[in-house]
């Protein structure tokens, strides 16, 4: 009896970080990555499979090398692999949670990639997220719109077994302030809400209150018994608007129904952003792109002004405002990338973006994400009369 107990207590504890590192480093190609998902067991509360979905063309190794210098992060190829990196913050008596392995994996769509770790949150926020953010303009983390997140969660829900459901456990929500704003003051309220609510209810409530999620935690829950109305959580995940998804179990399902769905939406948008610069089109300008709203938002002149104030704050850019109201026309140049755009508001329900000499998909994703997040989300397409 004692021996049995000793054997049990001596059994090595499942370490998901180590397991992930072992699996991923044994892969001959990054394309085989998704094959390891079925082998991952459920993680404990503090460790998650974390992914950042990015758009990128070219060689990510050289990007990583450049960023590591400016971000003060030591990054090395792991096992001489060009897609696997070990990383840690330079010069700190770094906690073990601050170092780890990250994989750069091709996504399911052209030019879409995933930066993936199994890690504690500290490594993710202090190291990986920093690297990803700094990788602009070579790589751009994509943006998930509210309706896209809703769709992805519904697809997951519709594809789970009958005795399972998907619920939202908590969310960080942003809402426009109702009161007139001082210039220096944030235009938004941010709320954190804790719920255990169905996906539709949660999104409908947010829509009614004109709120949108910055991030949310969802759960896959199993019914306790056939007759019971009670459920317990068997997997948790988190989605951030800025192209991040975490989960601690049900990796294949979340990959297939959540991440691939969201990546598909982003890919479609980035496809629309290709070949827009005047020069790359042999000096024949592209038709403008439009962000279309489902209401006449610019009927109120104050909304045009608010849009103007928002654009003045666009990071890493310079702006020249040709006209403020009743219509809006400005030129925005992106320092990091060298792209520039004319922005027009001439109708009550849309913003037009006219790409100028240079216009990269990354820069277009950055500016549209900014407008979505800081002003309002809309549908992007090519403008046609």
């Amino acid at each position: 009896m004692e021996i049995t107990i000793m054997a049990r207590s001596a059994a090595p504890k499942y370490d998901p970080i180590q397991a992930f590192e072992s699996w991923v480093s044994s892969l001959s190609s990054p394309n085989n990555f998704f094959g390891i998902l079925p082998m991952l067991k459920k993680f404990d509360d503090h460790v998650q499979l974390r992914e950042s979905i990015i758009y990128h063309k070219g060689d990510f190794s050289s990007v990583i090398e450049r960023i590591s210098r400016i971000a003060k992060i030591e990054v090395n190829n792991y096992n001489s692999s060009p897609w696997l990196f070990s990383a840690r913050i330079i010069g700190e008596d770094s906690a073990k949670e601050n170092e780890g392995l990250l994989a750069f994996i091709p996504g399911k769509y052209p030019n879409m990639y995933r930066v993936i770790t199994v890690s504690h949150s500290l490594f993710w926020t202090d190291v990986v997220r920093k690297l990803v953010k700094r990788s602009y303009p070579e790589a751009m983390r994509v943006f998930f719109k509210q309706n896209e997140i809703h769709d992805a969660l519904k697809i997951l829900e519709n594809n789970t077994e009958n005795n399972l459901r998907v619920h939202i456990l908590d969310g960080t929500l942003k809402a426009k302030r109702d009161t007139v704003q001082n210039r220096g003051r944030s235009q938004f309220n941010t709320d954190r809400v804790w719920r255990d609510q169905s996906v539709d209810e949660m999104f409908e409530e947010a829509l009614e209150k004109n709120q949108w999620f910055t991030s949310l935690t969802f759960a896959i829950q199993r019914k306790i018994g056939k007759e019971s109305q009670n459920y317990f959580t068997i997997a948790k995940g988190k989605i951030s608007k800025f192209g991040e998804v975490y989960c601690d179990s049900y990796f294949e399902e979340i990959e297939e129904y959540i991440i691939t769905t969201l990546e598909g939406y982003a890919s479609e948008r980035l496809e629309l952003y290709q070949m827009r610069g005047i020069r790359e089109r042999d000096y024949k300008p592209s038709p403008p792109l439009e962000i279309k709203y489902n209401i006449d938002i610019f009927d109120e002149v104050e909304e045009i002004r608010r849009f103007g104030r928002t654009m003045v704050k666009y990071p890493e850019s310079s702006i020249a405002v040709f006209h403020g109201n009743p219509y809006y026309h400005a030129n925005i140049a992106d320092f990091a990338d060298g792209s520039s755009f004319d922005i027009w508001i001439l109708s009550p329900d849309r913003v037009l973006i006219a790409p100028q000499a240079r216009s990269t998909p990354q820069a277009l994703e950055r500016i549209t994400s900014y407008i979505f997040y800081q002003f309002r989300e809309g549908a992007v397409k090519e403008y046609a009369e």
Partner: protein
Amino acid sequence: MPNESDIPDVDEIRQKIEEYETTIMGLRALCKVISDHYKVDNPTTPLRTSFGRRMTTSSANCVHPNNTATPDAVIQIEDDWGMVVEAKRTMPQNNNDRWRNTVDQLRKYDDNLVGWWTSSGELIPANITLLIDVDRSIDFSRYVQSLIDNGEISTFQNPTSIIEFFKKQEVKQFLHVRQVWGRLEPNNLSQKLEGGKSISVEGLIDGQRFYDQEPEAVEYTMVLLWQTVFTERYIGTKFDELAKVWLIDVDLDELTESLQKLYGQKSNEARERTFPRKRWIKKALDAFVLLDLAFHLEGNNKYVVKFKRFRGGDLFQRFYKHRISAKKKDATTNFGQLELFETNKLDQNLIEKDEDVNSDD
């Protein structure tokens, strides 16, 4: 000390720029009305346009025989319909009969002009149109009519019209064009334009930012250069640690050509005008020099732009300050007169060179 009240404020500069851009849109709106008119019967009707084309006048021309006339736009449908357009966004008051020059420009076009895209280069009869801002359209129409009525000028031989244009805000922004005087051929097009047509400004957004007239506000050219050309070119250039600027080598000829391709007109066809002109670009670069955002190298064509990342604030607010610097320079430079003379001489050379190429500038 310079009197800053002599200097237009930034809103006036924006106003000038809006007028310039609206004129370009007015020309494009007129082209669109004509194109739509002809496409009703034949959707594949080819429309040819040029925003600045040298036409040759005949020996019978009543203003400038055997010379060149350069309308702001030349529009042609097939081989049997054409229009020459003179565009005036702003007109001065008619002091000292200043409007007579504009009338003479129209009369110069009232000729069997050569330069159309036909085998003979001729197209008879061609329409003549003055596209004019709404503020002066009625007064100017009365003025032309009075010249005809008084026998000071003869009736136009070609179908001639005055079309006003203005922006109007309805549910969305429109550019409205309406014929207020004269006639056009065919008659149904004339009637359509007499009723007025509104064109959505959204549909007029295009790469064209210049036409065959120099923008009155140099800040317009400065902003286009800074935002779309220098912001792209500074990446990868040398960073001056001391001055905290990126140094971009600029060749005036190359820069001019680049802007012509991006935002103007550049053609190898001899009749086609080319713009923006080198002189306009030089003016913008010299304004950057005044703002200490560029310096001029030996010779006439080389500059180094000192690129800064201007975060926050509007570039027009920054760039229009070159006017204050220019004033200060004028006021305080006593010993620099010779230098100024030399600079002016170089500018004059450029103007002359421009005019060689564009003989009726």
